[in-house]
């Protein structure tokens, strides 16, 4: 292959494509940190081509059955490791169960990348400019990981995402699921109205580009009409996906109002530290954070009050 010399090509690797989850876990147990898991590959393969990642072993999980479901149960909406972004776009269950996810899914990369890329892969990859990590932070997600010798481990998203491109996943572990809690109003009555809502606001120069600014929001209302749960997380405006805890604390226990949302948005604006680059100045991006946080909270409230 003469073109190798002038083209971007990954370093050579050992390719394994197991047909059961047990075989995947065996390879991870034996080869650990030299392994990368290949699900959608839409971030990993480009990184390998740029030689930013050069795993000695690539374990392709695409032939493992039973890893591509979206389901509800045990108080969660669960998305398994091989669920593609476009499966989430098309899912009626996601529309009913998570407004934030339904709102974000169509804005992940572009339609062709969405046919391959996965939510679980995106979270495990933890590019600070990735959209899903923010949505998961706002929605209070958990990551479920499995290893041969350690069994199953449930990791809150705030513990899972440690730093840019880094997670608390052990080298022997496979992410099998990412799950978000169902709306509290549904924990007692299966078909109750959501009394919660969520949203993802994204500014991008063109489809497929990284976000210039992304803001994920999630709100739930209690019986008294006050805010019982709140989540706000920001994409592309900080060295990592930033959960704006201070603004969440302000919202929880208060009654929703424009003034309250404006105050929360101001906190979000001041919490982030974007870089000035080709996508805009830091000052501009911070102001977009403010505007998007207000809009996102208003949209989330509209869902919660519907």
């Amino acid at each position, binding site marked *: 292959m003469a073109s190798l010399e002038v083209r971007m090509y990954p370093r*050579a*690797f050992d390719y394994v*494509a197991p047909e059961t989850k047990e075989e995947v876990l065996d390879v991870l147990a034996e080869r650990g940190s030299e392994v990368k898991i290949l699900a959608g590959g839409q971030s990993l393969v*480009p990184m390998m*081509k740029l030689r930013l990642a050069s795993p000695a072993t690539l374990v*392709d999980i695409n032939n493992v059955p039973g890893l591509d479901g979206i389901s509800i149960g045990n108080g969660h909406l669960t998305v398994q490791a091989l669920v593609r972004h476009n499966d989430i776009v098309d899912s009626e269950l996601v529309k009913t169960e998570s407004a934030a996810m339904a709102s974000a899914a169509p804005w992940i990369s572009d339609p062709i990348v969405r*046919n391959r890329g996965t939510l679980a892969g995106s979270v495990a990859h933890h590019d600070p400019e990735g959209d899903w990590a923010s949505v998961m932070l706002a929605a209070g997600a958990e990551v479920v990981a499995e290893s041969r010798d350690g069994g199953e481990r449930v990791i809150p998203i705030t513990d899972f995402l440690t730093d840019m491109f880094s997670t608390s996943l052990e080298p022997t572990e496979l992410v099998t699921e990412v799950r978000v809690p169902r709306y509290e109003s549904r924990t007692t009555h299966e078909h109750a109205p959501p009394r919660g809502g969520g949203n993802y606001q994204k500014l991008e120069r063109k489809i497929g580009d990284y976000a210039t600014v992304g803001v994920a929001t999630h709100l739930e209302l209690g019986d008294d009409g006050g805010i019982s749960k709140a989540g706000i997380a920001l994409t592309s405006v900080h060295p990592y996906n930033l959960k704006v805890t201070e603004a969440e604390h302000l919202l929880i226990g208060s009654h929703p109002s424009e003034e309250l949302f404006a105050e929360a948005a101001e906190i979000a604006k001041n919490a982030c530290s974007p870089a000035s680059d080709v996508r805009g100045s830091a000052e501009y991006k911070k102001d977009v954070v403010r505007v998007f946080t207000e809009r996102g909270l208003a949209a989330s409230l509209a869902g919660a009050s519907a």
Partner: protein
Amino acid sequence: MEITVTVNGAEHSADVEPRTLLVDFIRTDLALTGTHIGCDTTACGVCTVLLDGTPVKSCTVFAVQANGKSITTVEGLKQNGELHPIQAAFKEEHGLQCGFCTPAMMLVGSKLIEDNPSPTDDEVRWAISGNLCRCTGYINIVKSIQRAGELTKAGS
């Protein structure tokens, strides 16, 4: 690694290095050069092929991942010597200028009209938003894909 892939209906077996990209397997091993290489970074979409009927960017899939699967490239659109409606429509509506993005646009367009034979402008633009036309000839590409839908409905 030994792989067997069905490409445009014909089965091909080959021994490939795992790092061989699908686009290179198609262009170099199979000599099907209708599938193009543009940005090589998953952005431009000119390398799009259908993998088991679904559009994928073949610069971002390894050939070994297509083992046991079915691929359609632009060369597979024509059936029994007849142009596929999407090809006839691109010709009729002048849907190409330099032609570099055309194979991918036709494959994505053929998939769209299969699911939705009467797409609106917005639906077509949304569907092709992962594909760049460096001539910026989008207006005629949109018309061509819509025309292909009409031809398909008229022919079926």
